[in-house]
């Protein structure tokens, strides 16, 4: 009987999300996050040029990221090197479309 119950218990595959974090979440491709102090204007331009979804653009001394368009392809990570890393955030749903547009200050020089 105990073996039966153990089998039932071990057979549960259903995610506990949202009551508990889902282990598969760590494997998800997620939008980039930036080290603002390592961003330069030149790098921001290169990041914008590399983004196939046109979700990155430079606006003055800010790098603008539109999470609504990001496909999490990772090309910005390749171009940006240590200035860019995956954010790990997938809980991005919102009632305000504008909240998906993030401005990251360019902390480095030109």
């Amino acid at each position: 009987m105990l073996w039966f119950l153990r089998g039932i218990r071990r057979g549960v595959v259903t995610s506990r999300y949202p009551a508990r974090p889902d282990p598969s979440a760590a494997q998800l491709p997620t939008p980039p996050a930036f080290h603002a102090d390592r961003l330069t204007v030149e790098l921001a331009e290169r990041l914008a040029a590399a983004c196939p979804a046109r979700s990155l653009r430079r606006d003055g001394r800010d790098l603008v990221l539109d999470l609504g368009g990001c496909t999490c392809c990772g090309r910005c990570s390749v171009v940006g090197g240590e200035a860019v890393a995956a954010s790990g955030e997938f809980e991005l749903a919102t009632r305000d479309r504008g909240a998906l547009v993030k401005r990251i200050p360019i902390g480095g020089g030109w």
Partner: protein
Amino acid sequence: MSEEQRLAAQLQDRAFGLFGRSLHIRTFDSGSCAVCESEIRLLSSPYYDLHRLGFFFTPAPRHADLLLVSGPAVRAAEPALRKTLEALPEPRIVVAVGACALGAVFTEDELVHGRVDAVIPVDVYVPGCPPSPLALLYGLLVAVGRLEEKVQALRFDLGEELTA
């Protein structure tokens, strides 16, 4: 926030609260590449099992509480999209799913509106290309007010904390 806006927000929260226990979802593909639909379909799998949260898919818009729209709202689908929305009884929720639906992939032209909220009002936006089933679950739970939004607090600046 003005008094009217505060009252409107309270009313909206109350309306969303009505859906708290059980919710029927009608999906609508307004011209997507079908990858969003693939992820939506995964919600019914044993792993994600959205039924445990009180969500159910229904083929009939008249039985639905929530319209889950993917795709960039091609103009050919506009009449069907409007009719589907009108068939949903009030109160209803519209959730736009994926980068196309959020207006970040296609620009407006003679073939496509480029974003769902150019055709019908959208209550919740779920980004991603495609959004993962977990992101979709989160979006549905935000839509019914069972989870709080967190994207406003995220800064995506690793130099400081990720959250404000």
